């Protein structure tokens, strides 16, 4: 058994899944968060409470919901997506999008109002204003992205249910750790855990370096 190549493959799947989960969640969640944050409307407090509650959705419940949606006779069964990386990303997005919305929205309320007023006073287009908001809040936005990534890479309940931990296909670091633990290989499982932390650490450092570079 070539452990190294299998481990690399597992890391690859993990990174691929986390990348897409993070990117998609941010692409959907951030604009929504900004929109909610800067607008004043009647149901605002209710929406904030809703996203706050959804942030606490147990991963295994999200997994269960997605499983029931994509199971053979479920509403989306015909897509045949169960036990694939794609459906794992879907389940993770369900968990992470509320987090992104909530964090972005708080950030917007604090930082964005004055900036938006200045931009309006200078007659910037909506697009220019949005891009300005993004570039002016790089650090905060980055922390939201990294939070999303952290949630994704550490998640095990949902991806286990909908992905099935299939060797060479849907096995990620976390489900591999669960398997090794169940096999009784506690020290190996721990080693995998340390590798997972290292990967997370490296990603955090790279991302922070990227943002700081721009600010210099």
């Amino acid at each position, binding site marked *: 058994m070539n452990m190294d190549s299998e481990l690399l493959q597992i890391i690859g799947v993990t990174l691929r899944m986390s990348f897409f989960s993070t990117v998609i969640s941010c692409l959907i969640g951030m604009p929504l968060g900004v929109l909610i944050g800067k607008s004043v409307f009647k149901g605002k407090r209710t929406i904030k409470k809703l996203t706050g509650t959804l942030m606490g959705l147990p991963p295994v419940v999200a997994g269960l919901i997605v499983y029931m949606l994509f*199971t*053979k006779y479920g509403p989306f069964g015909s897509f045949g997506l*169960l*036990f694939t990386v794609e459906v794992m990303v879907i389940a993770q997005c369900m968990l992470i999008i509320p987090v992104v919305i909530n964090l972005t929205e708080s950030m917007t309320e604090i930082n964005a109002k004055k900036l938006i007023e200045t931009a309006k006073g200078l007659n910037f287009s909506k697009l220019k204003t949005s891009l300005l908001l993004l570039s002016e809040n790089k650090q905060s936005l980055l922390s939201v992205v990294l939070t999303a990534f952290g949630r994704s890479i550490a998640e095990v309940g949902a991806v*286990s249910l909908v992905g*099935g*931990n*299939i*060797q*060479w*296909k849907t*096995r990620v670091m976390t*489900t*591999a750790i669960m*398997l090794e*633990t*169940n*096999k*009784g*290989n*506690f020290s190996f499982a721990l080693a995998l855990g340390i590798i997972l932390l290292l990967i997370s650490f490296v990603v955090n450092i790279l991302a922070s370096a990227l943002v700081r570079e721009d600010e210099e």
Partner: protein
Amino acid sequence: MKKLLAILLSVVMLLSFAACAKEKTPENPVIRMSTTTSVNDSGLLSYLLPYFEDATGYTVEVQSAGTGAAIQKAKDGNADLILVHSKASEEEFVSEGYGVERIPFMYNYFVVVGPKSDPAGVKGSESAAAAFAKIADAKANFVSRGDDSGTHKAELKIWGDNVPDSKSDSWYISAGQGMGACLTMASEKGAYCLTDKATFLANANSLELEIVLSEGEDMKNTYSLIECNPEKLDGVNTEGARALIEWMTGKECSELIAKYGEEQYGSALFYLIEE
């Protein structure tokens, strides 16, 4: 006021009588049993153990995990006895000094389950090995436990020299999960799977699978009890472990085991090993 006192007194007396009626609770009343998920999922233990607990005053804490983890937990000193079905691992457990003696006490059969359409034509095969060969030829989907469990080891033994490669044989799905989860996956994917009969029957209602091959000699699955060795491990409840093992290999338990499953599934799920 007097009436109230009288009632209180009677209640107190009744309670003390009831307490006396129970057996004197043993010194260390908790017995920790480490077992596998297949055993737990079959429901046998939750059926049997209350009889033991009522009769003796012991409380049995059952921890289930994959075979490897169940054994490791015992090695870490977290169990008083183990109940597993993996001969090689059991013998190693004893030879390494962690277990006192391997006591096989019951067995059941693995069965091959598969989709009703039986695409590989497994039905009627003369042995599990033959069935597996047909599955490989037809490249029909097959879900494997892939977790070094007793069931997985039995599966590998049946494949013999022809174990498929989960990397290149896309039809061979190494799931790395428990028996229940693997069966669910097999049902979803219309795949074959090797499973113990008990877990399958317990979940059959929610599965789109049926038994395509059963009870071959090469599908026998033996369960053993092993008492953890107090000389090697600290804190073992030896008295409790011995009491439980004695009861589980005794007449009353044998009768209970033989009856288990008859009402619900029409046949016994476990068989006793004739001494």
